[in-house]
């Protein structure tokens, strides 16, 4: 469904991605692991068009989306739920969700999806008219996920969905992501919490300084000596 071929990207003179090959099949939940600064977020940003690759190809459903504008990538069916939630603090919950559907024009479908998200996350329904900045961290994460769903994506990129959340909220968040996948949406997720991520993922890639150094089935990686030592705390 999504394929990256030798993708390179740089911030000024600093090369952040040094040739990434990666594949996500339809219906999969794939996880991208690695230390801070390994290039995980940059990989997602290259896919969604926030960073223009300097070399390589990104193919989604047999169409090249390398270097496309974020709006074009989103329209092709990839939503990006960014690190740190990034809800619009002064927009209401409802306006945030509407922004998620910005590229869509089907008013009725949007209204239906808005209701669906509000039913699925009752807390968002209760706080529809409230500024998103007044929500708790966990609620903001629900909103960020709901907002990404509003685009009706076929693939969602999650960047560190557990970052800065209380442990119980992390569990809820992962349950929601598992649920999204069960309903047929493909997921590519960057996550620091390797243990939780590997438990729910089908496959995983491990990144180090801009390269993929290891990949395989999540189950196998969990038992991999190197992964255990580096990311799972022994």
């Amino acid at each position, binding site marked *: 469904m999504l394929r990256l071929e030798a993708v390179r990207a740089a911030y000024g003179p600093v090369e952040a991605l040094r040739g990434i090959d990666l594949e996500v099949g339809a219906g999969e939940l794939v996880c991208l692991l690695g230390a801070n600064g390994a290039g995980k977020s940059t990989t997602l940003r290259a896919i969604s068009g926030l960073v223009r690759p300097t070399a390589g190809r990104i193919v989604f459903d047999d169409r090249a989306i390398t270097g496309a504008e*974020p709006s074009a990538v*989103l*329209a092709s069916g990839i939503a990006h739920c*960014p690190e740190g939630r*990034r809800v619009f*603090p*002064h*927009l209401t919950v409802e306006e945030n969700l509407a*922004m998620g559907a910005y590229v869509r024009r089907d008013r009725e479908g949007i209204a239906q999806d808005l209701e669906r998200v509000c039913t699925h996350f009752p807390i968002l329904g209760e706080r529809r008219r409230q500024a998103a900045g007044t929500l708790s961290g966990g609620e903001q994460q629900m909103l960020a996920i709901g907002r990404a769903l509003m685009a009706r994506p076929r693939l969602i990129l999650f960047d560190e969905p557990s970052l800065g959340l209380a442990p119980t909220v992390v569990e809820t968040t992962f349950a929601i992501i598992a649920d999204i996948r069960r309903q047929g949406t493909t997921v590519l997720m960057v996550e620091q919490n390797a243990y939780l991520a590997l438990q729910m993922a089908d496959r995983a890639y491990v990144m180090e300084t801009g390269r993929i150094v290891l990949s395989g089935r999540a189950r196998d990686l969990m038992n991999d000596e190197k992964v255990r030592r580096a990311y799972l705390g022994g």
Partner: protein
Amino acid sequence: MDAFLQHLVNGLVLGGTYALLGIGLTLIFGLMNLVNFAHGELYTLGAYATFAAVALGGWNFFVAVAAAIVVGAVAGALCERVLLAPLRDESIDTTMLVMIGLWIALQNAELLGWGGVAKSIPHPFPTAPLTLGPVGIAPLRVFVVLTALALIGLSWLLIQKTRLGTAMRATFQDRETAALMGVKIGRIHTATFAFGSALAAAAGALLGPIFLAYPSMGDLASLKAFSVVILGGLGNLAGATLGGVLLGIAEELGAGYVSSGYRDAVGFVIIILVLLFRPSGLFARSQRIG
């Protein structure tokens, strides 16, 4: 007391147009992080466009005012596309210098085109004031304040209730995430600059007939617009509206009770006080942009 009411009414008329100027400037600053020194020139453009349409083209006054607003929007859009779009990632200092250059260029173009003699813009209103108890107000001024208020209301609707307005606010709050939602940031910039310019042109078209149209009229308008934005807090829309009205009323009261020669000074003394004691604006605690 009667004189006080009269000053208040006059202040409201002036303040309504100040608010228009301020809203345009604060939107452009808040959204684009751009200090628009050419804002006053759009105001001048609005006045001259009205003059050209009415005095030279023989157009209906109201049509001319509407046309001036459109001219402002188109000029703003052009200016953004041609001058600012290529500089999108440049620092605020660079774009500020460009806008100072545009200010000088436009003002001299106006001098070249229209000459230095002030033009009076004909309008269809009778000069006899309408009296309401102790307060007298010229019909033209009634039209000005009502139109200004209507435009402020429309701006508010546009920003708060439309898809474009929501995208503008989202871009203002978090540009990158707005891009992830599919917002085309470049278009939002063009639309915002055009919108702010249209409001400045509207202010010029409305005040032009009260005062006169002359090439340097935009200088003071720019200063007033910056004052309003400082009063209201940078990027604060409601603040700019209230700030504009407050500045207008303060100036009229100053002119009435101190000396009409100090009209502009009163406004600037207030700005200095605000900068000394509440540097983030009188309404800093209310949320920015809407």
